């Protein structure tokens, strides 16, 4: 059952990624793509495929993957189906860090400034939200996340208020909508190491998360170091989602939706859902990014906006569903 599921997911993700390479301003048919790749001379198609669409598609896969993975890990860790990096304030923390890096000239000093600051911001907010919500369940978690996000959002506004750039407010608003347009190999090089490192940390939590389904006491008794597990989840999420937010802006709900779609397929085991959730996240972001290029409503439809349009109603459904289930 499981190898078949993984294989099916991988095939779908590869198909989505390939079609993502063919869609855009310049029409490219599969035959043209193959010819262009085989051609000795660089041409318009290779340029578009290699320098524009491939980095964009790779980022969509990486970012979707880390969002789905961190959502699955956080849900398993907090034993709460509503947990998600965005809800814990990761995105707002990362945005705060990135805004400071971008608008106070740090990015011109080193291009690593945005991801590193994003990461630190994510670490601080996630840590605070998780510490606040350790005891108290769903409501405490949502409240703590909302409070921490609000503080980070206030920080973003303060930073913009004093930004030397008069257009900062407009830019950051559109940036926070999330987009992968025009992301190049530079962005891949910047974000990929952090995302991969974060992903590795998150994948290490699998066994522990399975045992944690029985509660902290039983997990500890089964040899799971719950404190270490929490740190892995915290640093993994901050590293991966922090870097993802720093290059693509805030993309919400993927971390919430992806694990939920996959959970029934793996018998609800929190550790088993990690890899499928990562693949589902990659699929969602790749498909959504593809859709933003197919839907022409004038200005670019932002990736984050499109995903939120689908994700927010799902979140609402989930809140009602969870409320009904737990008294």
């Amino acid at each position, binding site marked *: 059952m499981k190898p078949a599921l993984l294989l099916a997911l991988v095939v779908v993700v590869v198909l989505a990624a390939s079609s993502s390479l063919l869609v855009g301003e310049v029409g490219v048919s599969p035959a043209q793509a193959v010819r262009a790749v085989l051609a000795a001379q660089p041409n318009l198609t290779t340029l578009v495929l290699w320098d524009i669409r491939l980095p964009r598609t790779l980022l969509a896969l990486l970012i979707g993957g880390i969002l789905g993975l961190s959502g699955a890990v956080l849900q398993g860790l907090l*034993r709460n189906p509503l947990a998600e990096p965005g809800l814990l304030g990761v995105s707002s923390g990362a945005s705060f860090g990135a805004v400071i890096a971008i608008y106070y000239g740090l990015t011109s000093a080193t291009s690593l400034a945005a991801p590193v600051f994003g990461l630190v911001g994510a670490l601080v907010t996630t840590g605070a939200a998780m510490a606040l919500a350790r005891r108290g369940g769903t409501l405490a978690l949502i409240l703590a996340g909302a409070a921490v996000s609000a503080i980070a959002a206030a920080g973003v506004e303060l930073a913009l208020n004093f930004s030397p750039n008069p257009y900062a407010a407009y830019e950051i608003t559109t940036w926070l909508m999330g987009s992968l347009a025009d992301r190049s190999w530079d962005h891949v090089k910047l974000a990929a190491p952090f995302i991969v490192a974060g992903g590795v940390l998150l994948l*290490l939590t*699998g*066994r522990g998360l*399975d*045992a944690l*389904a*029985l*509660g902290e*006491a*039983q997990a*500890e*008794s*089964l*040899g*799971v*170091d719950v404190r270490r597990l929490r740190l892995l989840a915290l640093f993994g999420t901050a590293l991966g989602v922090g870097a993802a937010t720093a290059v693509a802006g805030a993309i919400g709900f993927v971390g919430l939706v992806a694990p939920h779609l996959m*959970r029934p397929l793996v*018998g*609800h*085991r*929190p550790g088993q859902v990690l890899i499928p959730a990562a693949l589902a996240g990659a699929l969602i972001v790749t498909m959504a990014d593809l859709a933003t290029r197919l839907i022409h409503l004038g200005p670019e439809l932002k990736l984050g906006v499109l995903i939120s349009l689908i994700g927010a109603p799902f979140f609402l459904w989930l809140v009602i569903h969870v409320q009904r289930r737990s008294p």
Partner: protein
Amino acid sequence: MSGLRLVGVSVKREGRTVLTEASAAFPPGSLTAVIGPNGAGKSTLLAVAAGLLKPHAGALTLDGRPLETFGRQALARRRAYLPQSPRADWPISVERVVALGLTPYLPAFGRLPDELETQVETALRSHDLLALRHRRATELSGGELSRTMLARAVVGDPDLLLVDEPTAGLDPRHALDAAHRLGQRAQAGRTVAMAIHDLHLALRFADQVVALKDGCILAAGPLREVLDEPLLRRLYDMPARLIRDPDGVSVRFLG
């Protein structure tokens, strides 16, 4: 000295001493009932004994070896612990919940090795769970959940089994069944301890008793020698009478 031994163990929580210089022995092949009123420190005693809570003072040994010298994994293989009202937070199947008991034997990644699957099979069978193996653990009745959790605890065949309130919330039949299974486990040569309020079950199945009140051990030793009317009176601040009849011994409180 085999089995579990506590010598002068003290535990403080938020500045308050919840366990004071507790000394007790949990010999192998016996079921020890940890009894006492609410808030006496029974759960604390079990958590310390399981190595989940660091004592403030005192020493614990398992088979003569200090407990803290066991590695996390090694200890997890030798002792199992079930907290009060254990439950699964996700709708995982019974079979997989039981398999979680083998966590300390698992490689970091990959599937459960085949020989371990056989152990799961054995545990399912011996706990009458074969028919329920695909049911979701979140949808079980109290008795079914209790059996599932017990199977989860013993699937790795640990030397030491510590169970906090195994009969809480169960109807008489299922409570009896749970206590009976723990007794069987002890008869098979393992060290078993349970915190329990139901003195009737304790009297029927336990070999040893540890009586706790306000964090202090009032008495510890073989049940038949230690458990008497004065002890019960001191424990619960109520006159009590032990009634012996052809069906066994029972307790009647005269408060």
